[in-house]
Protein backbone atom coordinates (compact mmCIF):
# COMPACT_ATOMS: atom_id res chain seq x y z
CA UNK A 1 0.00 0.00 0.00
CA UNK A 2 1.33 3.45 -0.90
CA UNK A 3 1.60 6.25 1.61
CA UNK A 4 -0.67 9.26 2.02
CA UNK A 5 1.79 11.59 0.29
CA UNK A 6 2.23 9.31 -2.72
CA UNK A 7 -1.46 9.95 -3.39
CA UNK A 8 -1.77 13.62 -2.37
CA UNK A 9 1.59 14.93 -3.48
CA UNK A 10 4.25 15.61 -4.43
CA UNK A 11 4.24 19.37 -4.72
CA UNK A 12 5.66 19.84 -8.20
CA UNK A 13 5.95 22.04 -11.25
CA UNK A 14 3.71 20.85 -14.07
CA UNK A 15 2.75 19.61 -16.50
CA UNK A 16 3.93 16.01 -16.22
CA UNK A 17 5.72 14.09 -13.50
CA UNK A 18 7.71 12.06 -16.03
CA UNK A 19 8.41 14.83 -18.55
CA UNK A 20 8.99 17.62 -16.04
CA UNK A 21 9.77 16.46 -12.48
CA UNK A 22 11.70 13.39 -13.70
CA UNK A 23 13.60 15.56 -16.18
CA UNK A 24 14.59 18.02 -13.44
CA UNK A 25 15.92 15.10 -11.39
CA UNK A 26 17.93 13.81 -14.36
CA UNK A 27 19.48 17.25 -14.71
CA UNK A 28 20.16 17.48 -10.99
CA UNK A 29 21.92 14.14 -10.83
CA UNK A 30 24.00 15.04 -13.90
CA UNK A 31 25.07 18.25 -12.14
CA UNK A 32 26.09 16.27 -9.04
CA UNK A 33 28.06 13.78 -11.11
CA UNK A 34 29.89 16.61 -12.88
CA UNK A 35 30.70 18.01 -9.44
CA UNK A 36 31.36 21.58 -10.56
CA UNK A 37 29.49 24.52 -12.10
CA UNK A 38 28.46 23.54 -15.64
CA UNK A 39 29.32 25.91 -18.49
CA UNK A 40 28.37 23.82 -21.51
CA UNK A 41 25.47 21.41 -21.93
CA UNK A 42 24.50 19.18 -24.81
CA UNK A 43 21.43 17.02 -24.44
CA UNK A 44 20.30 14.32 -26.83
CA UNK A 45 16.64 13.42 -26.48
CA UNK A 46 15.14 10.09 -27.47
CA UNK A 47 11.60 8.79 -28.01
CA UNK A 48 8.79 10.62 -26.27
CA UNK A 49 11.31 13.08 -24.84
CA UNK A 50 12.38 13.95 -28.39
CA UNK A 51 8.83 14.16 -29.68
CA UNK A 52 7.12 16.19 -26.96
CA UNK A 53 9.89 18.02 -25.14
CA UNK A 54 8.83 21.47 -26.24
CA UNK A 55 5.18 20.99 -25.27
CA UNK A 56 6.05 19.45 -21.91
CA UNK A 57 8.89 21.85 -21.17
CA UNK A 58 11.28 18.91 -20.80
CA UNK A 59 14.11 21.08 -22.15
CA UNK A 60 13.46 23.71 -19.46
CA UNK A 61 13.20 21.03 -16.80
CA UNK A 62 16.51 19.35 -17.73
CA UNK A 63 18.34 22.68 -17.76
CA UNK A 64 16.66 23.64 -14.46
CA UNK A 65 18.07 20.50 -12.86
CA UNK A 66 21.50 21.24 -14.30
CA UNK A 67 21.20 24.71 -12.72
CA UNK A 68 20.50 22.95 -9.40
CA UNK A 69 16.77 23.77 -9.08
CA UNK A 70 14.47 21.46 -7.14
CA UNK A 71 11.40 19.84 -8.76
CA UNK A 72 9.06 22.37 -7.10
CA UNK A 73 11.06 25.47 -8.04
CA UNK A 74 8.90 28.00 -9.87
CA UNK A 75 11.92 29.22 -11.83
CA UNK A 76 11.88 25.99 -13.90
CA UNK A 77 9.79 27.61 -16.64
CA UNK A 78 12.43 30.35 -17.04
CA UNK A 79 15.40 27.98 -16.83
CA UNK A 80 16.57 28.42 -20.43
CA UNK A 81 16.71 32.18 -20.01
CA UNK A 82 18.40 31.91 -16.61
CA UNK A 83 21.01 29.53 -18.06
CA UNK A 84 21.77 31.96 -20.89
CA UNK A 85 22.09 34.79 -18.38
CA UNK A 86 24.67 32.73 -16.51
CA UNK A 87 26.58 32.28 -19.75
CA UNK A 88 25.83 28.57 -20.00
CA UNK A 89 25.83 27.31 -23.58
CA UNK A 90 23.21 24.63 -24.19
CA UNK A 91 22.03 22.63 -27.15
CA UNK A 92 19.32 20.02 -27.70
CA UNK A 93 19.31 17.31 -30.35
CA UNK A 94 16.78 14.64 -31.23
CA UNK A 95 18.25 11.17 -31.53
CA UNK A 96 17.06 7.60 -32.02
CA UNK A 97 18.80 5.36 -29.49
CA UNK A 98 16.90 2.23 -30.50
CA UNK A 99 15.30 -0.04 -27.91
CA UNK A 100 15.78 2.06 -24.78
CA UNK A 101 13.17 3.62 -22.46
CA UNK A 102 11.03 6.14 -24.41
CA UNK A 103 11.95 8.97 -22.03
CA UNK A 104 15.72 8.75 -22.34
CA UNK A 105 18.21 11.61 -22.39
CA UNK A 106 21.96 11.62 -22.98
CA UNK A 107 23.50 14.55 -21.12
CA UNK A 108 26.98 15.85 -21.94
CA UNK A 109 28.30 18.38 -19.45
CA UNK A 110 31.43 20.49 -19.33
CA UNK A 111 32.29 22.20 -16.06
CA UNK A 112 33.96 25.48 -15.22
CA UNK A 113 37.28 23.71 -14.49
CA UNK A 114 37.12 21.70 -17.68
CA UNK A 115 35.75 18.45 -16.25
CA UNK A 116 33.44 16.61 -18.64
CA UNK A 117 30.94 13.85 -18.14
CA UNK A 118 28.36 11.92 -20.13
CA UNK A 119 25.27 10.56 -18.41
CA UNK A 120 22.50 8.43 -19.91
CA UNK A 121 19.27 8.30 -17.96
CA UNK A 122 15.55 7.82 -18.30
CA UNK A 123 12.50 9.26 -16.59
CA UNK A 124 10.66 6.06 -15.78
CA UNK A 125 7.33 7.40 -14.46
CA UNK A 126 5.91 9.35 -11.55
CA UNK A 127 9.03 11.52 -11.40
CA UNK A 128 11.29 8.52 -10.81
CA UNK A 129 14.51 8.21 -12.78
CA UNK A 130 17.09 5.60 -13.66
CA UNK A 131 20.64 6.53 -14.64
CA UNK A 132 21.91 3.70 -16.84
CA UNK A 133 25.35 4.88 -17.90
CA UNK A 134 27.99 7.25 -16.53
CA UNK A 135 31.03 7.99 -18.70
CA UNK A 136 30.70 4.70 -20.54
CA UNK A 137 30.10 2.55 -17.46
CA UNK A 138 26.80 0.71 -17.19
CA UNK A 139 25.15 1.59 -13.90
CA UNK A 140 21.75 1.54 -12.22
CA UNK A 141 21.26 4.64 -10.14
CA UNK A 142 17.85 5.91 -9.01
CA UNK A 143 18.84 8.94 -6.95
CA UNK A 144 16.59 7.70 -4.15
CA UNK A 145 19.56 6.93 -1.89
CA UNK A 146 22.79 8.78 -1.22
CA UNK A 147 25.41 7.15 -3.42
CA UNK A 148 29.17 6.83 -3.24
CA UNK A 149 30.78 6.50 -6.65
CA UNK A 150 34.38 5.45 -7.13
CA UNK A 151 36.52 5.28 -10.25
CA UNK A 152 39.29 2.84 -9.44
CA UNK A 153 41.90 0.48 -10.75
CA UNK A 154 40.35 -2.96 -11.22
CA UNK A 155 42.39 -5.13 -8.82
CA UNK A 156 41.71 -7.34 -5.78
CA UNK A 157 40.92 -5.70 -2.46
CA UNK A 158 39.62 -2.28 -3.55
CA UNK A 159 36.02 -3.07 -2.71
CA UNK A 160 36.99 -4.26 0.77
CA UNK A 161 38.99 -1.10 1.41
CA UNK A 162 36.05 1.13 0.49
CA UNK A 163 33.39 -0.89 2.29
CA UNK A 164 35.48 -1.09 5.45
CA UNK A 165 35.61 2.72 5.52
CA UNK A 166 31.82 2.75 5.27
CA UNK A 167 31.64 0.13 8.04
CA UNK A 168 33.87 2.29 10.24
CA UNK A 169 31.41 5.18 9.91
CA UNK A 170 28.46 2.79 10.47
CA UNK A 171 27.07 3.44 7.00
CA UNK A 172 24.84 0.67 5.71
CA UNK A 173 25.04 -0.31 2.04
CA UNK A 174 21.62 -0.77 0.44
CA UNK A 175 22.69 -1.61 -3.13
CA UNK A 176 26.04 -1.92 -4.84
CA UNK A 177 27.29 -2.47 -8.35
CA UNK A 178 30.78 -2.74 -9.82
CA UNK A 179 31.46 -2.46 -13.52
CA UNK A 180 34.61 -2.23 -15.60
CA UNK A 181 35.62 -1.87 -19.20
CA UNK A 182 38.07 -4.79 -19.13
CA UNK A 183 40.01 -6.83 -16.57
CA UNK A 184 42.71 -4.84 -14.85
CA UNK A 185 41.58 -1.56 -16.40
CA UNK A 186 39.58 1.27 -14.88
CA UNK A 187 36.43 0.30 -13.00
CA UNK A 188 33.46 2.07 -11.52
CA UNK A 189 31.65 1.20 -8.33
CA UNK A 190 28.36 2.60 -7.07
CA UNK A 191 27.30 2.08 -3.47
CA UNK A 192 23.81 3.30 -2.61
CA UNK A 193 23.61 3.71 1.16
CA UNK A 194 21.02 4.31 3.87
CA UNK A 195 22.91 7.00 5.77
CA UNK A 196 24.33 10.42 4.98
CA UNK A 197 27.77 10.37 3.35
CA UNK A 198 29.78 13.08 5.09
CA UNK A 199 32.78 14.85 3.61
CA UNK A 200 34.98 12.91 6.03
CA UNK A 201 33.84 9.58 4.59
CA UNK A 202 34.43 10.69 1.02
CA UNK A 203 37.81 12.20 1.91
CA UNK A 204 38.93 8.95 3.52
CA UNK A 205 37.83 6.97 0.48
CA UNK A 206 39.82 9.33 -1.73
CA UNK A 207 42.94 8.32 0.25
CA UNK A 208 42.65 4.71 -0.93
CA UNK A 209 45.62 4.15 -3.26
CA UNK A 210 43.84 2.32 -6.05
CA UNK A 211 41.13 5.00 -6.30
CA UNK A 212 41.38 7.57 -9.02
CA UNK A 213 38.37 9.42 -7.71
CA UNK A 214 35.58 9.08 -5.18
CA UNK A 215 32.59 11.33 -4.88
CA UNK A 216 29.13 11.22 -3.43
CA UNK A 217 25.72 12.12 -4.78
CA UNK A 218 23.09 12.96 -2.19
CA UNK A 219 19.62 11.51 -2.59
CA UNK A 220 17.63 13.82 -4.87
Amino acid sequence: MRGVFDIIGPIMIGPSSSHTAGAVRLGLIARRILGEEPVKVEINLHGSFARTYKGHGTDKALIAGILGFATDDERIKDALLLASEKGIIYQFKKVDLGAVHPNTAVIYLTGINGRTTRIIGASVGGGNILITNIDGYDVELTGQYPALITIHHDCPGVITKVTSILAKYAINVAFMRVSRQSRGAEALMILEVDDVLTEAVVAECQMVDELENAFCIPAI
Partner: protein
Amino acid sequence: MNFKCIEDLVQQSELKKLPIYELILQYESEKSQMERADILSAMKKNWQVMKASAEKGIANQEKSNSGLVGGDAKKVSEYLEQGYMGKTVLKAAAYAIGISEVNAVMGKIVACPTAGSCGILPAAILAVAEQKKFTEEQILNALFTAAGIGMVIAQNASISGAEGGCQAECGSAAAMTAAALVELAGGSPEQVAQSVALALKNLLGLVCDPVAGLVEVPCVKRNGFASIYAMLAADMAMAGVQSMIPVDEVIDAMYQIGNVLPKSLRETAEAGLAASPTARRLENTLYGKTEL
Protein backbone atom coordinates in the same frame (compact mmCIF):
# COMPACT_ATOMS: atom_id res chain seq x y z
CA MET B 1 -3.92 -1.02 11.42
CA ASN B 2 -4.22 -2.70 8.08
CA PHE B 3 -6.72 -2.51 5.27
CA LYS B 4 -6.99 -4.03 1.84
CA CYS B 5 -10.18 -2.48 0.53
CA ILE B 6 -12.71 0.26 1.22
CA GLU B 7 -14.98 -2.20 3.04
CA ASP B 8 -12.11 -2.86 5.51
CA LEU B 9 -11.87 0.87 6.16
CA VAL B 10 -15.62 1.21 6.72
CA GLN B 11 -15.75 -1.81 9.06
CA GLN B 12 -12.77 -0.73 11.14
CA SER B 13 -14.06 2.80 11.30
CA GLU B 14 -17.42 1.58 12.63
CA LEU B 15 -15.83 -0.96 14.97
CA LYS B 16 -13.33 1.44 16.52
CA LYS B 17 -15.76 4.37 16.36
CA LEU B 18 -13.08 6.43 14.65
CA PRO B 19 -13.53 8.42 11.43
CA ILE B 20 -11.74 7.16 8.31
CA TYR B 21 -9.31 10.09 8.35
CA GLU B 22 -8.17 9.10 11.83
CA LEU B 23 -7.47 5.52 10.68
CA ILE B 24 -5.47 6.83 7.72
CA LEU B 25 -3.49 9.19 9.96
CA GLN B 26 -2.66 6.32 12.29
CA TYR B 27 -1.72 4.08 9.36
CA GLU B 28 0.58 6.72 7.89
CA SER B 29 2.19 7.34 11.24
CA GLU B 30 2.94 3.62 11.70
CA LYS B 31 4.14 3.15 8.14
CA SER B 32 6.33 6.24 7.76
CA GLN B 33 7.49 6.48 11.39
CA MET B 34 6.71 10.19 11.15
CA GLU B 35 5.27 12.11 14.08
CA ARG B 36 1.56 12.88 13.82
CA ALA B 37 2.27 16.62 13.95
CA ASP B 38 4.72 16.34 11.06
CA ILE B 39 2.22 14.41 8.96
CA LEU B 40 -0.41 17.06 9.65
CA SER B 41 1.95 19.86 8.79
CA ALA B 42 3.01 18.15 5.54
CA MET B 43 -0.67 17.89 4.57
CA LYS B 44 -1.17 21.52 5.53
CA LYS B 45 1.65 22.50 3.21
CA ASN B 46 0.00 20.53 0.38
CA TRP B 47 -3.28 22.34 1.06
CA GLN B 48 -1.60 25.73 0.98
CA VAL B 49 -0.06 24.97 -2.42
CA MET B 50 -3.45 23.71 -3.64
CA LYS B 51 -5.16 26.95 -2.57
CA ALA B 52 -2.45 29.09 -4.16
CA SER B 53 -2.72 27.16 -7.43
CA ALA B 54 -6.51 27.68 -7.48
CA GLU B 55 -6.22 31.43 -6.98
CA LYS B 56 -3.53 31.63 -9.63
CA GLY B 57 -5.61 29.42 -11.92
CA ILE B 58 -8.76 31.55 -12.05
CA ALA B 59 -6.67 34.60 -12.89
CA ASN B 60 -4.51 32.82 -15.46
CA GLN B 61 -4.33 34.27 -18.95
CA GLU B 62 -1.06 32.66 -19.93
CA LYS B 63 -1.06 30.02 -22.66
CA SER B 64 0.80 26.73 -22.30
CA ASN B 65 4.04 26.04 -24.20
CA SER B 66 1.98 24.47 -27.00
CA GLY B 67 -0.63 27.24 -26.99
CA LEU B 68 -3.45 24.67 -26.70
CA VAL B 69 -4.80 25.75 -23.30
CA GLY B 70 -4.91 28.76 -21.00
CA GLY B 71 -7.48 31.40 -20.05
CA ASP B 72 -10.63 29.25 -19.77
CA ALA B 73 -10.77 29.21 -15.96
CA LYS B 74 -10.93 32.99 -15.96
CA LYS B 75 -13.85 32.92 -18.42
CA VAL B 76 -15.82 30.49 -16.24
CA SER B 77 -15.06 32.40 -13.05
CA GLU B 78 -16.43 35.58 -14.63
CA TYR B 79 -19.67 33.76 -15.53
CA LEU B 80 -20.50 32.44 -12.03
CA GLU B 81 -23.61 34.55 -11.47
CA GLN B 82 -25.16 33.91 -14.87
CA GLY B 83 -24.95 30.14 -15.23
CA TYR B 84 -27.56 27.38 -14.82
CA MET B 85 -25.52 25.43 -12.31
CA GLY B 86 -25.24 27.83 -9.41
CA LYS B 87 -22.26 29.63 -8.05
CA THR B 88 -20.69 26.84 -6.00
CA VAL B 89 -20.72 24.32 -8.82
CA LEU B 90 -19.38 26.75 -11.40
CA LYS B 91 -16.75 27.91 -8.97
CA ALA B 92 -15.57 24.32 -8.57
CA ALA B 93 -15.35 23.99 -12.35
CA ALA B 94 -13.42 27.27 -12.63
CA TYR B 95 -10.96 26.28 -9.92
CA ALA B 96 -10.42 22.80 -11.37
CA ILE B 97 -9.79 24.13 -14.87
CA GLY B 98 -7.60 26.86 -13.38
CA ILE B 99 -5.39 24.52 -11.34
CA SER B 100 -5.03 22.32 -14.39
CA GLU B 101 -4.03 25.37 -16.45
CA VAL B 102 -1.43 26.27 -13.83
CA ASN B 103 -0.05 22.76 -14.31
CA ALA B 104 0.00 23.22 -18.09
CA VAL B 105 1.88 26.54 -17.90
CA MET B 106 4.57 24.98 -15.69
CA GLY B 107 3.26 26.41 -12.43
CA LYS B 108 3.34 24.81 -8.98
CA ILE B 109 0.65 22.21 -8.19
CA VAL B 110 0.08 19.20 -5.93
CA ALA B 111 -0.30 15.90 -7.77
CA CYS B 112 -3.68 14.48 -6.63
CA PRO B 113 -3.31 11.67 -7.35
CA THR B 114 -1.47 12.74 -10.53
CA ALA B 115 -0.52 16.01 -12.20
CA GLY B 116 -3.06 15.37 -14.97
CA SER B 117 -5.88 15.18 -12.42
CA CYS B 118 -4.52 17.77 -9.97
CA GLY B 119 -7.44 20.22 -10.17
CA ILE B 120 -10.38 17.99 -9.25
CA LEU B 121 -10.04 17.60 -5.48
CA PRO B 122 -8.78 21.04 -4.40
CA ALA B 123 -11.36 22.75 -6.63
CA ALA B 124 -14.39 20.99 -5.18
CA ILE B 125 -13.18 21.34 -1.60
CA LEU B 126 -12.46 25.06 -2.03
CA ALA B 127 -15.82 25.71 -3.62
CA VAL B 128 -17.82 23.93 -0.90
CA ALA B 129 -15.63 25.35 1.88
CA GLU B 130 -16.46 28.87 0.74
CA GLN B 131 -20.16 28.01 0.67
CA LYS B 132 -20.34 26.12 3.98
CA LYS B 133 -17.53 27.88 5.87
CA PHE B 134 -15.60 24.70 6.69
CA THR B 135 -12.52 25.17 8.88
CA GLU B 136 -8.99 24.30 7.80
CA GLU B 137 -8.95 21.48 10.34
CA GLN B 138 -12.05 19.93 8.78
CA ILE B 139 -10.51 20.26 5.34
CA LEU B 140 -7.23 18.62 6.38
CA ASN B 141 -9.18 15.73 7.89
CA ALA B 142 -11.10 15.33 4.65
CA LEU B 143 -7.82 15.23 2.73
CA PHE B 144 -6.71 12.20 4.76
CA THR B 145 -9.98 10.44 3.98
CA ALA B 146 -9.43 11.21 0.30
CA ALA B 147 -5.86 9.93 0.48
CA GLY B 148 -7.04 6.68 2.06
CA ILE B 149 -9.46 6.11 -0.82
CA GLY B 150 -6.70 6.87 -3.33
CA MET B 151 -4.36 4.45 -1.59
CA VAL B 152 -6.87 1.60 -1.95
CA ILE B 153 -7.56 2.43 -5.60
CA ALA B 154 -3.82 2.58 -6.37
CA GLN B 155 -3.37 -0.78 -4.67
CA ASN B 156 -6.36 -2.63 -6.15
CA ALA B 157 -6.61 -0.91 -9.55
CA SER B 158 -4.44 1.95 -10.81
CA ILE B 159 -3.96 5.70 -10.68
CA SER B 160 -1.90 5.86 -13.88
CA GLY B 161 -3.32 6.87 -17.25
CA ALA B 162 -0.69 4.79 -19.02
CA GLU B 163 -1.91 1.72 -17.13
CA GLY B 164 -5.64 2.24 -16.77
CA GLY B 165 -6.67 5.16 -18.95
CA CYS B 166 -8.18 8.41 -17.70
CA GLN B 167 -10.64 6.54 -15.44
CA ALA B 168 -7.56 5.73 -13.34
CA GLU B 169 -6.52 9.38 -13.06
CA CYS B 170 -9.62 11.60 -13.25
CA GLY B 171 -11.88 8.76 -12.10
CA SER B 172 -9.75 8.10 -9.04
CA ALA B 173 -9.48 11.82 -8.31
CA ALA B 174 -13.26 12.21 -8.50
CA ALA B 175 -13.73 9.24 -6.16
CA MET B 176 -11.26 10.70 -3.67
CA THR B 177 -12.98 14.07 -3.94
CA ALA B 178 -16.44 12.64 -3.33
CA ALA B 179 -15.10 10.92 -0.20
CA ALA B 180 -13.60 14.18 1.04
CA LEU B 181 -16.86 16.07 0.45
CA VAL B 182 -18.89 13.46 2.34
CA GLU B 183 -16.39 13.64 5.21
CA LEU B 184 -16.76 17.43 5.25
CA ALA B 185 -20.55 17.13 5.27
CA GLY B 186 -20.35 14.87 8.33
CA GLY B 187 -21.39 11.72 6.47
CA SER B 188 -20.92 8.21 7.87
CA PRO B 189 -18.08 5.89 6.76
CA GLU B 190 -20.72 3.97 4.78
CA GLN B 191 -21.75 7.17 3.00
CA VAL B 192 -18.09 7.86 2.19
CA ALA B 193 -17.91 4.43 0.55
CA GLN B 194 -21.17 5.00 -1.34
CA SER B 195 -19.93 8.31 -2.72
CA VAL B 196 -16.73 6.66 -3.95
CA ALA B 197 -18.73 3.95 -5.72
CA LEU B 198 -21.07 6.50 -7.33
CA ALA B 199 -18.30 8.82 -8.51
CA LEU B 200 -16.03 6.11 -9.88
CA LYS B 201 -18.81 4.07 -11.47
CA ASN B 202 -19.82 6.95 -13.68
CA LEU B 203 -16.33 7.61 -14.96
CA LEU B 204 -15.51 3.97 -15.74
CA GLY B 205 -14.14 3.39 -19.21
CA LEU B 206 -12.82 6.91 -19.62
CA VAL B 207 -9.86 6.70 -22.00
CA CYS B 208 -6.61 8.66 -21.97
CA ASP B 209 -6.23 10.15 -25.46
CA PRO B 210 -4.29 13.39 -25.03
CA VAL B 211 -3.86 15.59 -28.10
CA ALA B 212 -0.20 15.70 -29.14
CA GLY B 213 0.61 13.63 -26.04
CA LEU B 214 0.33 16.69 -23.82
CA VAL B 215 -1.50 17.03 -20.48
CA GLU B 216 -3.76 19.70 -22.00
CA VAL B 217 -6.57 18.56 -24.33
CA PRO B 218 -8.92 17.13 -23.07
CA CYS B 219 -7.30 16.97 -19.61
CA VAL B 220 -7.67 20.59 -18.49
CA LYS B 221 -11.41 20.94 -19.12
CA ARG B 222 -12.03 17.37 -17.99
CA ASN B 223 -10.77 18.34 -14.54
CA GLY B 224 -13.69 20.79 -14.39
CA PHE B 225 -16.23 18.14 -15.34
CA ALA B 226 -14.83 15.53 -12.95
CA SER B 227 -14.93 17.94 -10.03
CA ILE B 228 -18.68 18.34 -10.57
CA TYR B 229 -19.15 14.57 -10.85
CA ALA B 230 -17.59 14.29 -7.42
CA MET B 231 -19.95 16.91 -5.97
CA LEU B 232 -22.99 15.12 -7.36
CA ALA B 233 -21.75 11.77 -6.02
CA ALA B 234 -21.25 13.30 -2.57
CA ASP B 235 -24.71 14.92 -2.57
CA MET B 236 -26.35 11.69 -3.73
CA ALA B 237 -24.58 9.68 -1.02
CA MET B 238 -25.54 12.24 1.64
CA ALA B 239 -29.14 12.07 0.40
CA GLY B 240 -29.07 8.33 1.09
CA VAL B 241 -28.67 7.05 -2.47
CA GLN B 242 -26.82 3.73 -2.62
CA SER B 243 -24.78 2.19 -5.39
CA MET B 244 -26.16 -1.22 -6.40
CA ILE B 245 -22.59 -2.37 -7.05
CA PRO B 246 -20.45 -2.30 -3.87
CA VAL B 247 -17.52 0.11 -3.96
CA ASP B 248 -14.74 -2.50 -3.97
CA GLU B 249 -16.37 -4.28 -6.90
CA VAL B 250 -16.47 -0.96 -8.76
CA ILE B 251 -12.73 -0.55 -8.13
CA ASP B 252 -12.12 -4.11 -9.38
CA ALA B 253 -14.21 -3.33 -12.46
CA MET B 254 -12.03 -0.27 -13.10
CA TYR B 255 -8.95 -2.48 -12.93
CA GLN B 256 -10.48 -5.02 -15.35
CA ILE B 257 -11.49 -2.29 -17.79
CA GLY B 258 -7.96 -0.85 -17.64
CA ASN B 259 -6.53 -4.26 -18.49
CA VAL B 260 -8.63 -4.63 -21.62
CA LEU B 261 -8.29 -1.03 -22.80
CA PRO B 262 -6.07 -1.03 -25.88
CA LYS B 263 -2.67 0.60 -25.43
CA SER B 264 -3.66 3.16 -28.07
CA LEU B 265 -6.11 4.64 -25.54
CA ARG B 266 -3.71 4.68 -22.59
CA GLU B 267 -1.72 7.91 -22.87
CA THR B 268 0.02 6.99 -26.13
CA ALA B 269 -1.85 9.57 -28.26
CA GLU B 270 -2.48 6.92 -30.93
CA ALA B 271 -6.28 6.85 -30.93
CA GLY B 272 -9.41 8.66 -29.81
CA LEU B 273 -9.33 12.45 -29.66
CA ALA B 274 -5.58 12.35 -30.20
CA ALA B 275 -6.13 10.74 -33.61
CA SER B 276 -8.83 13.18 -34.75
CA PRO B 277 -7.99 15.20 -37.87
CA THR B 278 -7.80 18.41 -35.85
CA ALA B 279 -5.52 16.84 -33.24
CA ARG B 280 -3.22 15.51 -35.95
CA ARG B 281 -3.14 18.93 -37.62
CA LEU B 282 -2.27 20.61 -34.29
CA GLU B 283 0.37 17.98 -33.64
CA ASN B 284 1.98 18.57 -37.04
CA THR B 285 2.03 22.30 -36.41
CA LEU B 286 3.68 21.72 -33.05
CA TYR B 287 6.24 19.08 -33.93
CA GLY B 288 6.55 19.21 -37.70
CA LYS B 289 5.66 16.30 -39.97
CA THR B 290 9.07 14.93 -40.72
CA GLU B 291 10.39 14.65 -37.19
CA LEU B 292 10.72 11.48 -35.12
